[in-house]
């Protein structure tokens, strides 16, 4: 069998370390032994495949999952999923979860005394189209306090989970909002050294996807690990690397 082209490894500094003491929960959970570098085998370059039927229309509109409309500011969150080679990642599963407009999660262990919203679950999923694009309708999540340190508050954020084409391309991240005053103080946002890498987690307000009289648009593009270049790929797209 020929050598199987693997996926690229992350650029140094662009990913968080496992241990980041300002995020207190990492202290007892981060491994202390060095990771063992594993060249990619068939097990890492394959991964779960989900068909488009896995996501129905309701799953990508978080404002229509109950009998009434949720409270809060309706927003459109959309973007394109690409790989590091600038190629769209089509037909891949994108999952999101978030707090409601008051900053409360529909979860048994959320202790925040803000109200739940009977019309908001905060869970969505979608499959990207042939051009790698996804789109969710939701409400802007609220900021909320947490126990990490005195007077700790999380900036407003939406959790994202993506699979990509392989086990090696899995990504879980969080999307933030431009201009949120809590961002500079958040140990989770700030866990990555590279400032540009951090700032790419901030979605951009977007007139193009804003719907008049309906909802503001925010754009959040996501980049997954790309294949190491192979002659066949370069050829097919006529690109110079």
């Amino acid at each position, binding site marked *: *069998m020929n050598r*199987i082209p693997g996926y690229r490894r992350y*650029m140094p500094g*662009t*990913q*968080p370390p*496992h241990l980041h003491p300002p995020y207190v*929960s*990492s202290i*007892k*959970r*981060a*491994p*202390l*032994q060095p990771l*063992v570098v*594993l060249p990619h*085998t*068939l*097990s*890492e370059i*394959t*991964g*779960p*495949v989900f068909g488009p039927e896995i996501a129905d229309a309701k799953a990508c509109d978080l404002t229509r999952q109950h009998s009434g409309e949720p409270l809060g500011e309706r927003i459109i969150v959309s973007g394109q999923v690409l790989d*590091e*080679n*600038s190629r769209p990642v089509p037909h891949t599963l994108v*999952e*999101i*979860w*978030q707090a409601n407009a008051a900053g409360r999660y529909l*979860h048994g*262990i959320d202790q925040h005394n803000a109200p739940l919203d009977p019309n908001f*679950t*905060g869970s*969505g999923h979608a499959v990207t189209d042939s051009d790698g694009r996804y789109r969710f309708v939701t409400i802007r999540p609220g900021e909320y306090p947490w126990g990490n340190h005195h007077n700790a508050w999380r900036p407003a954020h939406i*959790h994202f*989970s993506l699979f990509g*084409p*392989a*086990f090696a391309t*899995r*990504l*879980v*991240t*969080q999307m933030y909002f431009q201009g949120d005053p809590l961002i500079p103080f958040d140990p*989770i*946002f700030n*866990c*990555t050294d*590279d400032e540009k*890498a*951090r700032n*790419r*987690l901030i979605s951009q307000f977007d007139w193009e996807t804003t719907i008049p009289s309906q909802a503001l648009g925010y754009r959040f593009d*996501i*980049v*997954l690990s*790309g294949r190491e270049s192979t002659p066949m790929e370069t050829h097919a797209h006529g690109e110079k690397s």
Partner: protein
Amino acid sequence: MSLPATTWQTVGPFFSIGFSWLYRDKLAGPGASGERIEISGRILDGDSKPVPDGIVEIWQANSQGKYAHPDDPQEKMAESGFTGYGRVPTDDGGRFRFMTIKPGRVPGPDGKLQAPHLAVSVFTRGLLRRLITRIYFPDEPGNAEDFALGLVEAGRRGTLIAKKIEGRPGALEWNVVLQGPGETVFFDV
């Protein structure tokens, strides 16, 4: 043009809101061939305390050593009742469990077959990115020449090998120790 990959962030404590719709602890449909197995264990932190807010995802080949994925070039058949993907959360005691079939051997990069294994992602509150590891099987002759096990120092390989549960055929125990003595081997993939 090359784009930088998006930065990881923790799943946090509330991931079940987004993940529970796709929880899958039974991987094998009635038509899937192979030896039925159950793998259970716990996730433990650096104080040996169970981690109740964790999640384990697995990815594996079917019993013939074929991945249900278009990039698997082997001329073997995928099985309709077996996708190879599982996702299970931990309970209050940090326990997880899934039922599947023992995977067949898949090719390794050195031209040899890899020993039967499952690829594993571990996510918990407190982990800023996933941890990647593998589950191997006890008494498996292929382990001695396995490509990935060969990258691991001998004294730590045992953390990747599940143990038989006495008196329960097909039942295996495999634990994830995030930190400290007996720390599980994690891979940089």
